[in-house]
């Protein structure tokens, strides 16, 4: 039953007029070229940064993590979708989503690659990265993050691999599949089915772990009140379920196209519901976090809140209102049956989640941990100035706040994972069949 379906995806589908499938070769070539440009530009700019040092970014000692780490956390988040969609199929029997398990695994794999790639330009000494393997310090959440993200990369790759095996067998191509030569197609299909299920079941806990451990990088640090909360890991998971599923939804929508939208509508509706549901949980966590920060009324906590709602109020509003819009819209019946609205909802959510990741940095680094309250002289929360690490004529060296915004160089380098993810996804979609016919 599987065999006849997969063969039919050739000339017949190409005649439909959907976005990517209308002329998949050409459209995808354009996407590939675009991604290649992003990659090239960011790599060249990274070369410049390697030559000059991280001084070309706007990070300084008082604000030592910025766009790169936020982008990294963003990609870790959207990498979740893959295994969440496939495991929903296998664990919760949501059969409707089955056609999209391949796209889901692919998007997860690509985003994990993107996240890994983003870390490299953030490192002052990327040439010594091997030290993580030679001298790992297992107390560091960063080491655990490397372990779980690498595992996730392998699992999502395997997930794509086992799902594509039968196709490769039939078409007589693929890679790392020499061992399939001696087996029959039926055998391979059996293996593929069995292992797709197994991989997604092994993958689910790892998917949850990548968010947990990434969140723990921040949440373990008592020096930064904004991060130091037990709600951060579960909140990361809820945001990941929302944004990861939204990414699968977006790619699936673009790939299926408007014309065949109706055919898969049920699957899209299900994904939109997962997104909306996860956002409810996220907003609940976020509200609890704010409430607890505010209620006890430590001056430090109030300072963070005044940064969140005052100085960075606009970014925070983006973080709250765009996803809130998506959530409400995805719960409503109407939006879920509109191709364009689903795309809009996903896009707004991504902007919101990106703002959310930036908001990990802004309030944290602008609330200097060493702040003193001096009783009796009316001084509360006086921040002990930090030497920023650069001397410039006319500018202070010691600062108590840093108006961080990424430099052009920094922003260009942060395009690296975007280029990589789009490239990998487009290349895979172009080369192999990621949307098996329904069976």
């Amino acid at each position, binding site marked *: 039953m599987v065999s006849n379906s997969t063969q039919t995806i050739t000339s017949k589908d190409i005649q439909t007029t959907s976005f990517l499938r209308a002329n998949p070769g050409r459209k995808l070539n354009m996407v590939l070229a675009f991604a290649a440009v992003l990659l090239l530009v960011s790599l060249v700019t990274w070369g410049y940064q390697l030559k000059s040092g991280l001084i070309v970014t706007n990070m300084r*000692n008082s604000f030592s993590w910025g766009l790169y780490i936020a982008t990294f956390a963003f990609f870790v988040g959207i990498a979740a979708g893959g295994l969440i969609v496939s495991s929903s199929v296998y664990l919760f029997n949501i059969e409707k989503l089955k056609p999209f398990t391949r796209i889901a695994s692919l998007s997860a794999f690509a985003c994990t690659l993107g996240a890994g790639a983003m870390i490299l330009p953030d490192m002052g000494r990327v040439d*010594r990265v091997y030290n993580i393997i030679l001298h*790992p310090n297992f*107390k560091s959440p960063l080491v655990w993050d490397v372990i779980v993200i690498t595992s996730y990369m392998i699992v999502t790759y395997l997930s794509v691999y086992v799902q594509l095996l039968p196709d490769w067998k039939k078409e007589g191509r693929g890679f790392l599949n020499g061992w399939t030569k001696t087996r029959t197609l039926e055998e391979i299909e059996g293996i593929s089915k069995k292992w797709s299920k197994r991989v997604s079941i092994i993958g689910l806990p790892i998917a949850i772990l990548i968010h947990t451990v990434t969140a723990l990088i921040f949440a373990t*640090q008592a020096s930064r009140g904004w991060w130091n909360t037990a709600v951060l890991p579960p909140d990361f998971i809820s945001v990941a379920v929302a944004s990861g599923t939204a990414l699968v939804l977006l790619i699936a929508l673009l790939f299926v196209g408007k014309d065949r939208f109706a055919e898969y509508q049920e699957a899209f509706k299900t994904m939109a519901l997962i997104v909306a549901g996860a956002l409810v949980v996220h907003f609940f966590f976020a509200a609890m976090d704010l409430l607890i920060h505010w209620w006890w009324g430590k001056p430090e906590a109030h300072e963070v809140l005044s940064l969140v709602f005052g100085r960075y109020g606009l970014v925070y509003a983006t973080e709250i209102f765009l996803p809130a819009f998506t959530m409400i819209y995805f719960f409503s019946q109407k939006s879920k049956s509109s191709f364009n609205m689903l795309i809009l909802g996903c896009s707004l959510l991504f902007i919101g989640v990106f703002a959310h990741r930036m908001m990990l940095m802004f309030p944290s680094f602008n609330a200097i941990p060493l702040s003193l309250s001096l009783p009796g002289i009316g001084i509360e929360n006086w921040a002990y100035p930090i*030497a920023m690490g650069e001397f410039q004529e006319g500018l202070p060296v010691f600062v108590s706040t840093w108006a961080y915004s990424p430099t052009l160089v920094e922003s260009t380098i942060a395009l690296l994972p975007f280029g990589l993810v789009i490239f990998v996804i487009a290349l895979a979609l172009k080369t192999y069949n990621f949307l098996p016919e329904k069976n």
Partner: protein
Amino acid sequence: MRLGMVIDLDKCIGCRTCAVACKSHNAQPPGTWWNRVFTPGSTFHQAAVGKDGRLQMNFLPVSCQMCDNAPCEKVCPVGATYTDERGVILVDYERCIGCRYCIAACPYGVRQFNWEDPKKAKQRAGYKTGYEYGHPEDFRDKDGRLSYTPNRPVGVVEKCTFCIQYTSKGEAPACIRSCPSRARIFGDLDDPESEAGRIIRERQVFRLKEELGTQPKVYYLAPVKPAR
């Protein structure tokens, strides 16, 4: 042996000699300061603060607090930040990968990153070419780890080492030796005979951000001079 320091805030006159001595002995590039002295509560150093005409002016020197429970060491993915056998927290400049996790983790803002090559930084700041300052020789610990070198590699983190290049030879750190009012007392906190050990046992000392549980080995004697 646990090396530590006591700073007597009544004696500190806020002259910043220690900061300058530290900076030059340890060859810190422009914009980098391992040791800072500020007037708490005031945006200007050496400006009195207070209200209702009752003013006071105290100074608070802050460098690495040499935490016994050091978050910077715990977060370092590659063990580049480590505690030596005398309780001094050091950075191996040849192992640090420049992830800056330790900067996020340190509650005292003492960790400094080499955003650019120190030689370039000096040039850009207008220092005369060839002008070098600071202890000229590298220091390697007994395992050969590079914990002092006059020009640190670009892209690594640095901070106070209790002047490892001197204290390893039994000499006192530069800040101790340079302080004109002898506000700093340095020694082995475990040694009941040492002055520092005696003060932390017998006097009312405090540590910065004690509530975080970092257990610093830098102690302060609170100022008791009255407001005027």
